[in-house]
């Protein structure tokens, strides 16, 4: 498989504090990759560096083009959608408007309408609430909306930051089933950051374990599932 995203020597931080100490990882076209790690390991920072939300150095190749140092709106236009931690709901817009803003970069009105209909059929709860203000929905509904909004831009790669955060276990399971379907049926590549290692490793083909800004282990999902480092990372030692 060819690499859709290839990252080498990624360094980033906040002000004088360097969080990422030089990461190398990749996501193949059509692949789901998970980044595991304890709180503060640098998972969110990695995603924010990729989508241009914070300054980063290193080489980031996406779909054959270097995207390091570009602005977030340019990276979005290149085909990377970032579903931020806490869902990033645009609370004052309706559900429908949240989906339409997701297609901001697109010009094909019929295609946009078809995609909105499609995500409403994938997430029927959103259709029921389409004229409601997005901020008034439950956490699970807002997470579905965040994913649907990201997909409205027809991205090649979706970055998902802690999709299970704050959701009830049943809702989380349903969400991960949907993500697996999207990957299998539409071939959408995903880079997922997740605390819930068990669920994440079932969804992903491969994974990396991040510890204080460095990748300490990587491997297939099966290898990681039986690995001591993974358990250690989740105990936060």
């Amino acid at each position, binding site marked *: 498989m060819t690499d859709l995203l290839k990252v080498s020597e990624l360094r980033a931080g906040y002000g004088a504090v360097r969080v990422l100490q030089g990461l190398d990882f990749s996501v193949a076209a059509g692949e789901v990759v998970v980044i595991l790690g304890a709180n503060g390991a640098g998972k969110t920072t990695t995603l924010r560096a990729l*989508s241009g*939300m914070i300054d980063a150095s290193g080489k980031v190749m996406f779909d054959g083009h270097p995207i390091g140092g570009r602005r*977030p*709106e340019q990276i*979005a*236009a290149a085909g990377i*959608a*970032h579903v*931020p931690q806490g869902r*990033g*709901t*645009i*609370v*004052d*817009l309706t559900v429908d*408007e949240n989906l*339409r*803003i*997701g297609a*901001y*970069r697109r010009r094909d009105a019929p295609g946009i309408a078809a995609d909105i209909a499609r995500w409403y059929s994938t997430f029927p709860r959103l259709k029921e609430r389409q004229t409601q203000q997005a901020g008034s929905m439950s956490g699970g509904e807002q997470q579905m909306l965040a994913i649907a*909004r*990201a997909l*409205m*831009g027809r991205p090649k790669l979706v970055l998902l930051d802690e999709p299970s955060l704050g959701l009830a276990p049943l809702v989380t399971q349903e969400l991960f089933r949907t993500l697996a379907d999207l990957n299998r049926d539409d071939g959408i590549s995903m880079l997922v950051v997740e605390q819930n290692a068990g669920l994440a490793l079932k969804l992903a083909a491969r994974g990396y374990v991040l510890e204080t800004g460095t990748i300490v282990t990587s491997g297939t999902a099966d290898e990681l599932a039986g690995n001591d480092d993974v358990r250690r990372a989740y105990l936060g030692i």
Partner: protein
Amino acid sequence: MSLFLTQLMIGIGSGAVYASLALALVLVFRTTGILNFAQGEMALYSTYLVWFFTERSVPVWIAILLAMAISFVGGAAIERILIRPVEQASPLVLVIVTIGMFLAINSIAQVQFGNDIKLLPRAYPNKTWLPGNVQISSDTLVLVGVLIAECLILYLVLNRTKIGLAFRAVASNAESSRLVGVPVGRMLMLGWAMAAAIGALAGALVIAPVGLQGASMQQILVYAFAAAALGGFDSPVGAVVAGLIVGVVGTMTTQYLHVVHDIELVVPFGLILVVLLFRPAGLFGTTRVERV
């Protein structure tokens, strides 16, 4: 009764001006989270531009449209050049920047145009009608008509166009908007640009009957700020309703309570103080009104 209704009409007329300027303050606050103390002086400068064009025999309505267009571009430029570099700074820094702009724009206007009173040609005839013994002046009708037109245009732009959707998205959640590819910087410029153009129109119309000088907009800005606070700094509807309330209360105070000089300045602010004690977010605002 007819005296009361006459005063009510006058109050609505001046309230329409406060409402326009409060609307400008709200547009800037919703997008960039800044209280623009220079909004009134920006409108003052725009009004000097109207005078400048009319002195060169440009018809007055064309002069107003030209000044609005220049203000639109100027507002965007101010956001890009002066505000963007300090966007992430503390609220105190931003207050100081806009107060600095207040002083600078005022001084530039006086250096450039002189400090004598300028008389602007009226954009419409000065007439008064007396339906049922209630005086209604053309000033009131025009100011209210312009306010209605502004609200209508703003509503259509914000709710019926793609750029309006993007503008509202940025005002609600800039980070998420950026992540789906909305050029956030351009939307912030648009907020300042629309505010400057609205201020230009309000300034030109309110000043034409009384003459233009350096301090022309200052009292009006204070009332507009009061209106924006009363309505809620993040609510366009609140700005309009509260602008009219401030205008009417001010006029009524002058008419019925004019026992102490300048009491008309005290009563509207007393009223606002009482409202804000019970509803700190303003009549129509949501509770999250501080910068974070």
